[in-house]
């Protein structure tokens, strides 16, 4: 009984997601899954090989984590359902902040990668 209810919940969620989510958000979600997979691969590699160039590991891993966080923040700001919470800020402004934060992030990542 419970298994069938979990199945129905999951199916309903997937249906709602594909039908009711704007394309913009789906693009962001795809981007986020890509970042997530990259981060997981790095972490598993570090567990296997060890932490020898520890700063390189930190740099790569933090780059993934921070990109993920920035992507989530962009999704929150761009989602039309949240328009009331970001009343003074347009979605374009949100995207500009996202790009600005990424520039700083990558500068730091490359510096620490050495």
């Amino acid at each position, binding site marked *: 009984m419970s298994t069938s209810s979990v199945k129905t919940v999951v199916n309903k969620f997937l249906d709602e997601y594909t039908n009711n989510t*704007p*394309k*913009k958000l789906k*693009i*962001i979600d795809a*981007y986020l899954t*890509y*970042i997530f997979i*990259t*981060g997981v*691969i*790095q972490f598993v*590699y570090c567990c296997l*090989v060890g932490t*020898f*160039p520890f700063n*390189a*590991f930190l*740099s*790569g*891993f933090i*780059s*993934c984590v921070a*990109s993920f966080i920035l992507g989530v923040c962009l999704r929150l700001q761009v989602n039309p359902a949240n328009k009331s919470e970001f009343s003074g800020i347009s979605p374009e402004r949100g*995207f500009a902040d996202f*790009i600005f934060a*990424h520039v700083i992030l*990558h500068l730091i*990542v*490359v510096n620490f*990668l*050495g």
Partner: protein
Amino acid sequence: CLIHFYKRKMRVLALLFLAPLFLGACLAQKKVLVLLENVAVKETHSLYFSMLQRNGFTLTYKVADDPSITLKKYGEHIYDNIIVFAPTVEEFGGSLSAEAMMDFVDNGGNLLVTAGSVTGDVLREIASESGFEVDEDGTYVIDHHNFDTKDGGYHTRVISDAQNMVKSDLIVGTGKLPLLYEGTGLLTDPSNPLVMDILTGSSTAYTHNPSLPIKEYPHTVGKATVMIAGLQARNNARIVFSGSLEFFSDEFFQAEVDTGNGKLVPSGNFELAEALSLWCFKERGVLRVDGIQHSRVGEGSAPEFYTIREMVQFYIDVKEKVNGEWVPFKPTDMQLEFVRIDPFVRSTMHVAKSELIGTTFKIPDVYGVYQFKVNYQRLGLTRISTSTQVSVRPLRHNQYERFIVSAYPYYASAFSMMFGVFVFAFVFLYHSDETKKKTE
């Protein structure tokens, strides 16, 4: 013509003036003050004194309680070595005392002292400051199995075999003849690292007053009966303390010893006395460090600082005094320590270029202030202790490995993140909204 004559005279005069200075420098280490019990000792020990003079020492004879004895003039010690052949003296004359003697040793002077069956208090004080104890008045070393038949029946003129000497050719020479001895015994503390038993009795020897019955255990028994003891102080000054004045006498030097199987063998006293005196007065077994060189392998001079994990070479020039000349010393067991509080590297040095000994090693992976330490202490040799301080720095920021192969996945992920953001930005901005068209 006259000018030439005067020039030659000037040169001769100059040589005449310089010669004593040069001689003085040569004799610098060889002024000996001899304190005698009485003037007769000079005659009964004439062979010993002539041996010293043959070896280049200048002797000044004084009776022990002569009031004109001075060790210092204008604050500097006049003599380099002191011989005390005065066992029964209670107090020295002049400004001399046990403290003055120990002050003399502290300043690098060497002492050769003989005690006897009756020993004066000042000599007992000197002995106890040096780490030995002289047995009570009236005691002799007695050996009922190894005695010379010429003594008065008390078996106090004992024979000690050459193998009872300390195992060092530098101190006792290479003689194998038995030794004749008549005097008191010394006690040494075996836990004192600076004291050595130069000549001990055989296993059947003991010390006691020969005319008293034995009521308690003798103070020294067997091989612990020390006849001649030595000390090399921490400043490398040497003290030799003998329990017998007769050991150095002409009679004992020329005596023939009955070893027990009827054969008469000459005594080895002269050889031992000569070797011992040369060792004591710093003519043998003396080392000095002439120079130290350290540099990176392949370079000639010492750098300002080293970096971790570099190869370093270290050379030291050690000389030994042999027959009055300083010749290169080539040990096989001298070690170099690279110390930062604790030694990180300990390396045995081997003979390297020309007369130096040295070694090459890799600086450890730890930075800090290190010292190159050489500590060499061997029986019969003066101690060598040198340390040179160097600083070892960590890698500069551009001395690290540049592209580490095992970190390639991390480089790839960081750059892929950048690429991802770039592509995402384009897609996000320029995608066509199909749902909008649908609602329209």
